[in-house]
């Protein structure tokens, strides 16, 4: 019981996908640093890039986190490009200076950018060399967050994938839960699983390097975020097995996700019910209240974070909305398939972006709610469309039961606000 039923008109897994290529109104993978540096409390993210990279991080962070953020940009200058300075020596010097100033840093990520990729600074070699210099106190890894290779949330994917090869080996049967979640949500998730008797539970990323995350052929892993394709592949290369499931958004998604994990660990139906019944009831009640303004309304997703497909599933099945178009930067069948199965047929599924063409489609459809990036939101509002900034969905706790009502609320608030504002004369 309580297995989500596929829609009667069929799902979207086999629906034709509109693939577009053109101007993309999305962030690059560097942006993930904004939440990753808060999640991993002993990590520093050093972008090797240009002034543009530094400016992006500052602008995307919106409010500057002046409490010494654990990220920075080593800005390439003219002499670095002209070969007058040895980039590796320069990097060693900056890292030395940084680590001596911040003894609390235990893991350092060298993050590649568009310029560093184009001029081919070998950050893997640099990470290896710096690891030897600073071991055992500091572990140095590298990944690319460049816009030529990564779209927004793919930065987190690249970061987590870079950690997989250095995870300790284990033969123990363990559950590894993968994806950066706000601590409060992570604690809720761990407690639900623990109450079902599932364990040991390991987390990637762990909050600190000393934690005991390990991987091996008896590891099974579940993803909490739909953008972790490379991490998924890297874990499979280490012999771990993926538990495919819809993503834990809303009552239905959370239940299906937990059920897939519970089934893997042979949890009885009674135990599952007794652990999930109360939070499910709360989630349903909260969704019902928050979704009141969403019923019967249409929604259009611009591609942003790869959260679009699971969220469209939540909005259509649990909040009574109709999806017009669901755009995602990338679609991975292994990750998004279970959600596509449940998403009722009808919407245009699109992958990639040609923003001007997509804007034309949105204008023609005039959806009740458009989910899009910050660059598009105000211009569309000015055209009379209601919008929800997609980035808030990444920066706000939205996973699992206790946040399901908040998730619905994020979508209903713009519509409610439009309804409450009255500026005409009373007559």
């Amino acid at each position, binding site marked *: 019981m309580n297995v989500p039923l596929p829609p009667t008109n069929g799902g979207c897994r086999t629906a034709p996908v509109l693939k577009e290529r053109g101007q993309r109104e999305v962030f690059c993978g560097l942006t993930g640093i904004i939440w990753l540096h808060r999640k991993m409390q002993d990590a520093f993210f050093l972008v090797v890039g240009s002034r543009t990279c530094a400016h992006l991080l500052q*602008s995307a962070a919106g409010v500057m986190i002046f409490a010494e953020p654990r990220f920075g940009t080593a800005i390439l200058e003219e002499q670095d490009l002209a070969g007058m300075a040895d980039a590796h020596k320069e990097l060693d010097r900056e890292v030395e200076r940084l680590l001596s100033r911040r003894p609390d840093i235990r893991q350092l990520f060298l993050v590649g950018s568009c310029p560093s990729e184009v001029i081919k600074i070998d950050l893997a070699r640099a990470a290896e060399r710096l690891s030897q210099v600073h071991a055992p106190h500091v572990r140095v890894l590298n990944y690319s967050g460049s816009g030529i290779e990564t779209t927004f949330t793919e930065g987190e994917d690249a970061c987590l994938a870079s950690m997989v090869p250095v995870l300790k080996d284990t033969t123990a049967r363990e559950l590894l839960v993968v994806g950066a979640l706000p601590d409060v949500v992570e604690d809720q998730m761990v407690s639900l699983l623990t109450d079902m008797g599932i364990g040991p539970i390991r987390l990637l990323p762990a909050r600190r390097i000393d934690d005991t995350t390990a991987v091996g052929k008896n590891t099974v892993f579940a993803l909490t975020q739909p953008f972790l394709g490379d991490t998924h592949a890297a874990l499979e290369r280490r012999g771990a097995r993926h538990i495919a499931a819809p993503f834990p958004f809303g009552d239905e998604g959370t239940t299906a996700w937990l059920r897939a994990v519970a089934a893997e660990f042979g949890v009885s139906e009674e135990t599952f019910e007794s652990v999930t019944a109360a939070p499910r009831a709360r989630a349903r009640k909260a969704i019902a209240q928050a979704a009141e303004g969403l019923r019967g309304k249409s929604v259009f997703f611009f591609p942003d974070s790869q959260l679009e497909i699971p969220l469209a599933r939540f909005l259509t099945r649990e909040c009574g909305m109709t999806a017009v178009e669901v755009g995602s930067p990338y679609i991975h069948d292994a990750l998004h398939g279970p959600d596509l199965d449940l998403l009722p047929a009808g919407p245009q599924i699109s992958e990639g972006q040609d923003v001007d063409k997509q804007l034309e489609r949105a204008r023609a459809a005039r959806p009740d709610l458009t989910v899009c990036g910050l660059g598009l939101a105000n211009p569309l509002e000015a055209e009379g469309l209601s919008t929800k900034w997609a980035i808030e969905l990444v920066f706000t706790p939205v996973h699992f039961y206790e946040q399901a009502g908040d998730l619905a609320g994020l979508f209903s608030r713009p519509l409610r606000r439009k309804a409450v504002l009255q500026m005409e004369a009373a007559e």
Partner: protein
Amino acid sequence: MKLTVWTYEGPPHVGAMRVATAMKGLHYVLHAPQGDTYADLLFTMIERRNHRPPVSYTTFQARDLGADTATLFKASCQDAVDRFDPQAIIVGASCTAELIQDDPAGLAETMGLSIPVIPLELPSYSRKENFGADETFYQIVKSLAKPQERTARVTCNILGPTALGFRARDDVEELTGLLSDMGIDVNVVAPLNATPSDIARLPAAHFNVLLSPETGEAAARFLEKNHGQPYTKVVPIGVGATRDFIAEVAEITGVTGRPDESRLRMPWWSRSVDSTYLTGKRVFIFGDGTHVAAHARIARDEMGFEVVGIGCYNREMARPIRALAKEYGVAALITDDYLEVEAAIEKLSPEMILGTQMERHIGKRLGIPCAVISAPVHVQDFPARYSPQVGFEGANVIFDTLIHPLVMGLEEHLLTMFRDDFEFHDDAGPSHHGGKAKAKTEDAPVVPAQPTDDNVIWLSDAEKELKKIPFFVRGKARRNTETFALEKGLHEISLDTLYEAKAHYAR
């Protein structure tokens, strides 16, 4: 390679975007990878613009690099012209595209477009945002301005205001009114709200008003040299500067009309006795060169503050700011490293900072009030109300801006009198600001204070007394006392030393 956490200026192509976004009928084709579109949100979110910036990004990816990014550029260019039908386009490269050397200018030239194509060379690895804006505006003016008859009436252009400028919208309005009072019409404002055909009309004006030297000086110089238009050197921010500006304009044009000063309240507000408490407040000023220079004069001559340090983040203004610092007898800080700015502020321990959003954060950390006077901008720097910086209304607005962060005069006295009161103590902060006053906690046992200078030690009585001094003057008292002790060759500061120093510095 230089490690940077926060930057005062973006890359130069963001400067070009500030010009393109300010204008109408112009489109910017930017050779750039995915992700550089983040810059759109600066305009749509910070400035709350209701249009996307007129920028097409070619959005090349890793797999294109080995193949044909040049074709991608040409396709984007053609697409932008077809879709947006601009009167002219500017073409250029962001930092990554600069490395792949596709030569957007050459490529666009071969396309035989029917509209002017203005190429931009903006070196991303050596220059920054203000340079990018200044250079872009100059190239546009150079390409489009046409020799022509002067207008019959005395007219001027207002040069320099861009998108994301500090109060540019209201400054243009205030300045237009001021000039109109003098009997001078504005021919064209540019780049803000100008079209390429407006740019062509620039040489019809009799002279130029350079509102923002950071973003308009190269164009002003070009127009002076090639079209014989003199330009104003005084930026009318502050009462004195506005009066100087009026005199300068009269000198250039021979017009004798004088603007109405009846709405100018600032001088009386500053002379009013309730402002006495402002006298000699030690202020540190940092921002772009133009606003810093204007505010140094306002601070010293119009507010009666003591300027203890000035500096700017844009190296282009280093020379005038150094000269100004000399005149004020202080050191000039020319840097774009906010850690250096923070260190300088900490060392000087001013009672107030006039700075940017960066200094506001520094002030928050150090417990020093800060008024924001310059870009880089933040959503708060785009108020809904009319709040210019230039002209007489600008002077009124600045007076309010500068006193707002401070503890008000009478409150200052009350805090001094009742500093041991459990709720009206100095950690409570200015009463007109939000935030819950923290109830005073019991004094922790007094530990000997760490001397800020290696050579002096505070004895516990003196340290206790120092803590009784209200927070907004405590830093100054500590510094003065230590300087005094050092001058006297004392290595310990006692209660007597504290009060001797107080008497020594009394004014």
